[in-house]
């Protein structure tokens, strides 16, 4: 009751102090919302790449990357061991046949034939027309939409067409022509499906056995000999839940192979964004600190100005705690008002910035840039309150310790 009255009295000063807290809070909210929004966007685009339950086994020793990678052969023996890893629900082998060209698409239609098993994670849920690969099929392919359009008007029209894949030999990559390996050979496949080329514009999905055969042809080996000599290009392990991904990765590494998972990438991103968010929160925190100094200043003034009033209240029986509570309540009031106003300002400010950006760069479905979630909102309010109480602590203690008699005589 007393706190409200005092707030109302020195309205200009209280308003200015509150504004300081509001601006500090708004800045903090905006900056953290920006970090959260950026993280959300990055994660969303990663989620769109693939499944978090997946672990990809690569034909390298674990740990090394890039040029220092030490190659290792993914043999059938290893695949059997991978299948035995706990929580490895399904294991899909992959073999990449030599690069080549889709003859009907002209020499720019360079392709990377991916030999996969039916049901493999790469061949799921992204069809424009037709179907995915099925078990025990041969001489079929699922091709990207951009290649389909080189051959026919619509994705549907290319279904059932027989196309020629010329694998091995020289291919065009961009504007340069590279030598390639072995002698080119032609394979005729029937198109059974067309997938959205967002995933890849060059991949052609073919049955694993076909790819192995093409690879063996290219090197003049039998399919079995090829499997022993070079092994598979990779293996996709699908765990029964993303929570087991780290365990599966560890098991793969213990078998001596490099393993990659989006889950772990996301954990890395989390860490990275934690630092980013911390830096931004620090900047916002400085603004709030400046506001806290404002509160402390206002409270020191208020205590001084109301010395006589403090004396009167003490004379009629206010205990030291009562006096402290009055001034702490005033500081808390500034904190809560400032926090609420700051939160609203922060949210509205974020919306306004998003509106300006979407006007400058119109997109059909823009991703939010600022994300204010419940923990952020509550945290900002709590922090504003806490900062105010801390700032009000010393001035209120000063009021508390004032001698009643000398306060009464204060002019």
């Amino acid at each position, binding site marked *: *009751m007393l706190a409200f009255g005092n707030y109302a009295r020195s309205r200009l000063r209280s308003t200015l102090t509150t504004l300081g807290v509001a601006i500090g809070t708004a800045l903090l909210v905006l900056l953290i919302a920006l970090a959260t929004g950026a993280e959300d966007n990055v994660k969303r685009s990663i989620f769109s790449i693939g499944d978090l339950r997946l672990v990809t086994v690569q034909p390298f020793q674990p740990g090394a990357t890039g040029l220092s990678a030490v190659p290792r052969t993914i043999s059938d023996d290893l695949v059997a061991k991978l299948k035995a890893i706990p929580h490895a629900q399904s294991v899909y082998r992959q073999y990449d046949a030599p690069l080549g060209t889709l003859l009907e698409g002209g020499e720019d239609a360079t392709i990377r034939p991916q030999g996969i098993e039916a049901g493999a994670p790469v061949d799921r849920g992204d069809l424009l027309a037709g179907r995915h690969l099925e078990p025990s099929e041969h001489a079929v392919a699922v091709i990207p939409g951009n290649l389909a359009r080189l051959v026919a008007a619509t994705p549907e029209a290319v279904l059932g067409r027989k196309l020629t894949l010329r694998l091995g030999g020289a291919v065009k990559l961009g504007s340069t022509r590279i030598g390639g390996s072995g002698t080119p050979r032609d394979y005729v496949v029937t198109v059974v499906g067309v997938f959205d080329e967002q995933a890849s514009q060059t991949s052609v999905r073919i049955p694993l056995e076909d790819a192995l055969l093409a690879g063996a042809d290219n090197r003049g080996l039998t399919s079995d000999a090829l499997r022993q000599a070079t092994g598979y290009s990779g293996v996709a392990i699908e765990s029964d839940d993303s929570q087991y991904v780290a365990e599966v990765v560890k098991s793969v590494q213990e078998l001596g192979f490099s393993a990659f998972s989006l889950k772990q990438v996301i954990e890395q991103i989390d860490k990275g964004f934690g630092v980013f968010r911390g830096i931004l929160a620090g900047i916002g925190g400085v603004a709030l600190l400046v506001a806290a100094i404002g509160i402390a200043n206002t409270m020191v003034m208020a205590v001084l100005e109301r010395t006589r009033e403090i004396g*009167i209240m003490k004379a009629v029986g206010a*205990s*030291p*705690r*009562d006096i402290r509570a009055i001034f702490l309540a005033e500081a808390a009031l500034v904190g809560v008002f400032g926090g609420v106003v700051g939160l609203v300002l922060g949210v509205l400010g974020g919306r306004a910035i998003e509106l300006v950006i979407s006007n400058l760069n119109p997109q059909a479905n823009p991703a939010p840039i600022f994300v204010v979630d419940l923990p952020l909102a509550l945290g900002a309010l709590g922090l504003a309150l806490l900062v105010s109480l801390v700032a009000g602590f010393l001035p209120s203690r000063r009021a508390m310790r004032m001698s009643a*008699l000398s306060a009464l005589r204060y002019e």
Partner: protein
Amino acid sequence: MASPDQVIVRATDVARVYPTGATAVSALDGVTLEVRRGEFLAVMGPSGSGKSTLLNILAGLERPTRGAVIVDGADLSTMDEVALASYRREKVGMIFQAFNLLPRYRVLENVALPLLFAGVPLDIRLERARAVLDRLGMGPRADHRPSQLSGGEMQRTAIARALVTEPSLLLADEPTGNLDSANGEALLALISELHARGQTVVLVTHDAGIASHAQRTIHMRDGRIVN
């Protein structure tokens, strides 16, 4: 000498020394005093005689350097700040020469203020404050601010604030000092009337005419009682 339960204030050999730099100033120098329940006592003396210091000690606003002050069975000289605050809240009501009202609050809120610190709920606070104001004829002024009142009305408000907790002891420090003679007389009549209804009053003044309203007068000089 009065029997113990009739004595409300018993001060024994009370001294108060103010340390001012190298030399100490002795405001009270061995005062021994008894006030009986229901008594109206005036403390007279020139300025600097120690009469206000004595009153402030009785009010629990400052502590004696030496001696014991027992009011209503409790020894003020051993109390800490918190205990003194509750003593001021429960046992004494005080009025000052300068009224000491809070200018930003209405008369009613000023009178109810001591009850706030006693933890009395708002509606009961206001009800009791209004009852006291009505009794002192200040009911119509309850919603005014102190600045809208005359001096006499301000001091009546201060008395209402002092009485709202029904204290055992009413202390008055030069209560008519800022009032014209008519208002001063009216105020003394009011204090006499409160006394007639059983209120114990200790009044400090330098004016013999004012002291003459009391039952008993003690005189002070240089920190001692001289009569």
